[in-house]
């Protein structure tokens, strides 16, 4: 039991834990940032993906240090979501990894006092030394509410600090109160209830509290508060980690039965009493100085959620986000890509050639580089996501889109992850964290990769250019553009269709409730947004980076081994011959390598024509060698092995190699096909891409028909729409679902779907007479 463990290791220098809790949208994060500065540690709670944030309070003594733990926003101690359960468990000291809080800061939105006080009084009753941070005093005043902090403090018997966290007002006083609270040695476990419970309920609570107090490891918070929660919240009893002894469970059940036969609803009776008490406190502490008028937020909402303008603004914003991710990100992405290429070249020329250098250049730098390249898109996406979220617009977007999403059984909130997945499924999947219901979150994760991400763009581009005739449809639209649009639309429709299927079968659940707060609009804080972008990109780089590193090493191995001595010998001889054609004096293999290194270091413009010719010849030899190595490598053999499986889709073993290598990342298809077909140096500059397109168009089937026909191209594009060819996505899904079960399931269902759809396209197309 965690509480006894925590008691056992009461080290002198151990930091004092202070839990920061409150309703969503009460400004808790801003207060947390103000208290801890920029050095917060961000991680996850064990076994779940709820974000855990903690940091040292600035301006406190070194020993004992004070650690602030930012609990997820919650409306009640009776949890309805994973986030809320974590908050309750932390306050009830049921999480082994979270030390017992020494004090609690409960943040309250002064402009929305009643609902916030509902939770605050629940927390105060637990009996921890508690400080109430009365935030957003400025907003309350603008809305005409004058909140008397002193009166509130008196009524709640708790220190109250009026604050405007956005401007830092009240932060120093809050710190002072936290220090005072942590200095209290004994928690006040005999807090009384603020709410006046009906007499029968009060009697049950008291007898249950006596039973709870008898436990040997009774936690140091108020037994009556625990008793009331047990009595009125079903999850408190059910959740295994609460671990109540059987006699307590039995006593609770009996007490509930007695209340039911007395004509009371045990689940809601305390809620009603509490709201009565809260309304009385509100009335005593707040003076309405102005007639309630329409706030700025209300006026803005009239436009933003308007029947016509609301939709127009929504579509406009989404178009802007979408455009930016593709347009603004492309320049820095090219820059990173070029930088990685240069780094690879530099390493290749600096280190002696060999298996290790090859692994470093082709396995690690190129592979990890392919992921790092997407960083600008991720940064931009999270810039927009946090702007929309922090301003309060995101809730409105969910409000507007909910009707459509609920048609396939999803929540309005699933919309944003799907949109994000157009850039990259990884941030999209990370964005599902805002979805409360675990099943809906899982459905959204499962369908996210169907949205065509930016890594598919180069694949679509090459295949469309190679396989489709240049033609205009209806005289205006390019066929290529139309197919591109069709690829994106197919993905979207498939995603919605699969969501519907999953909600009907595997993850059967009723359409989730949309009980969602629409918080007032506010100006987002730059520091909060930068912080968010930084945290997200760090997560992306470390988490996806470590796994993709491993997969790339594996892939490199499969594409480079087994080595063939005869092939190596042939390659060395051809290379030496090419060098000797320009420099007849060069004799030994070592001298050949030295000459090549020397030529590589020289200024390209100062080379003699003969030397230039030799270098070009060497490059050609190298490409041929790479293709030969690939052909007889494990990957090449696998390609031939799977040929019977992909033949009905119209693919041969060479395309098979492309498909197999794309399972690391889709865009690898382009560079792999360049290697397979010996198209110059494998690169992705525009010129070489057209080179690849030409070579693809020249490929023939054994019967002489072109291999990359329209129908093969379409079949291949369809395969890329559906298949989950992305190691990083698999890794992220594994992390977000905490098991291998779901990523494997996802991989197989998308693979099966890809095969089936390609089969239908290819065979159906042939039946219709296309070749």
């Amino acid at each position, binding site marked *: 039991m965690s509480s006894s463990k925590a008691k056992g290791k009461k080290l002198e220098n151990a930091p004092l834990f202070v839990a920061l809790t409150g309703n969503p949208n009460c400004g808790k994060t801003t207060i947390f940032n103000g208290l801890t500065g920029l050095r917060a540690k961000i991680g996850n709670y064990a076994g779940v993906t709820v974000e855990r944030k903690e940091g040292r309070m600035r301006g406190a003594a070194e020993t004992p240090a004070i650690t602030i733990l930012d609990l997820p926003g919650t409306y009640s101690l009776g949890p309805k979501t994973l986030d809320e359960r974590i908050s309750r468990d932390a306050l009830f000291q049921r999480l082994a990894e979270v030390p017992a809080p020494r004090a609690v800061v409960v943040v309250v939105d002064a402009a929305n006092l009643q*609902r916030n006080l509902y939770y605050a009084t629940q927390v105060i009753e637990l009996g921890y030394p508690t400080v109430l941070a009365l935030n957003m005093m400025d907003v309350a005043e603008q809305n005409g509410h004058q909140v008397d902090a002193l009166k509130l403090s008196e009524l709640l018997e708790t220190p109250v600090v009026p604050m405007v966290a956005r401007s830092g007002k009240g932060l120093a006083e809050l710190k002072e109160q936290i220090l005072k609270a942590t200095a209290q040695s004994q928690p006040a476990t005999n807090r009384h209830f603020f709410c006046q419970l009906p007499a029968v309920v009060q009697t049950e609570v008291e007898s249950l509290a006596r039973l709870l107090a008898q436990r040997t490891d009774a936690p140091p918070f108020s037994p009556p508060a625990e008793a009331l929660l047990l009595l009125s919240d079903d999850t408190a009893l059910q959740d295994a980690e609460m671990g109540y002894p059987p006699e307590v469970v039995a006593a609770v059940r009996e007490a509930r039965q007695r209340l039911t036969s007395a004509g009371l609803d045990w689940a809601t009776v305390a*809620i009603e009493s509490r709201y009565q008490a809260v309304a009385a406190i509100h009335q005593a502490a707040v003076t309405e100085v102005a007639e309630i008028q329409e706030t700025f937020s209300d006026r803005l909402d009239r436009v933003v959620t308007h029947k*016509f303008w609301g939709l127009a603004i929504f579509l406009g914003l989404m178009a802007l986000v979408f455009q930016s991710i593709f347009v603004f990100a492309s320049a820095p992405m090219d820059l990173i890509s070029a930088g990685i290429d240069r780094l690879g070249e530099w390493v290749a020329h600096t280190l002696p050639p060999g298996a290790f250098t090859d692994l470093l250049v082709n396995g690690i730098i190129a592979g990890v580089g392919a992921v790092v390249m997407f960083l600008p898109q991720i940064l931009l996406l999270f810039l927009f996501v946090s702007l929309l979220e922090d301003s309060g617009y995101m809730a409105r977007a969910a409000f507007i889109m*909910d009707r459509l999403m609920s048609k396939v059984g999803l929540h309005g909130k699933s919309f944003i992850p799907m949109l994000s997945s157009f850039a990259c499924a990884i941030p999209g999947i990370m964005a599902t964290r805002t979805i409360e219901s675990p099943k809906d979150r899982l459905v959204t994760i499962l369908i996210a990769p169907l949205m065509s991400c930016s890594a598919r763009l180069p694949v679509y581009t090459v295949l469309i250019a190679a396989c489709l005739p240049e033609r205009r449809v209806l005289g205006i639209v390019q066929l290529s553009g139309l197919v591109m649009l069709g690829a994106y639309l197919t993905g979207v429709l498939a995603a919605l269709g699969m969501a519907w299927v999953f909600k009907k079968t595997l993850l059967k659940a009723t359409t989730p*409730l949309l009980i969602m*707060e*629409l918080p007032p609009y506010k100006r987002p804080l730059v520091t909060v947004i930068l912080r968010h972008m930084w945290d997200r990109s760090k997560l992306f780089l470390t988490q996806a980076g470590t796994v993709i590193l491993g997969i790339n090493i594996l892939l490199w191995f499969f594409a480079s081994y087994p080595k063939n001595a005869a092939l190596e010998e042939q390659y060395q001889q051809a290379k030496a011959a090419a060098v000797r054609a320009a420099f007849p004096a060069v004799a030994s293999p070592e001298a050949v390598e030295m000459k090549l290194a020397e030529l590589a270091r020289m200024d390209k413009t100062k080379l003699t024509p003969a030397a230039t010719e030799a270098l070009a010849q060497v490059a050609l030899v190298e490409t041929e060698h790479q293709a030969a190595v690939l052909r007889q490598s494990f990957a090449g053999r696998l390609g031939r092995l799977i040929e019977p499986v992909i033949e009905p889709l119209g693919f041969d073993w060479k395309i098979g190699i492309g498909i197999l290598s794309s399972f690391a990342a889709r865009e690898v298809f382009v560079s792999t096909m360049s290697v397979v077909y010996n198209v110059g140096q494998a690169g992705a500059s525009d010129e070489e891409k057209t080179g690849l397109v030409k070579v693809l168009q020249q490929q023939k089937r054994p019967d002489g028909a072109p291999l990359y026909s329209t129908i093969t191209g379409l079949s291949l594009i369809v395969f890329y729409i559906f298949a989950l060819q992305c190691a990083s996505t698999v890794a992220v899904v594994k992390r977000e679902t905490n098991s291998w079960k779901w990523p494997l399931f996802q991989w197989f269902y998308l693979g099966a779907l890809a095969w089936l759809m390609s089969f239908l396209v290819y065979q159906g197309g042939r039946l219709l007479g296309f070749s």
Partner: protein
Amino acid sequence: MADATLSLASLTGGLSAIIAEINTSSEDRSRLMELGLVPGTVVEVVRYAPMGDPLEIKVRGYLLTLRRHEAELIRVTPKV
């Protein structure tokens, strides 16, 4: 009793009423009540979403959205 009450979803935007009872599942009822929708509370339907669903309500000074389906299970009495 039942004849005197209306469903919350029957109110047009801008109208207020008083919550009489919540007939959703027990779990949803306690969440709605924890958010302040206890019987006797004044609730205003602010507007419906552009596609007619969900709806936006104002309760205890803040805004909340619900689907029609849930709103239909919330019975209200007209404000006098």
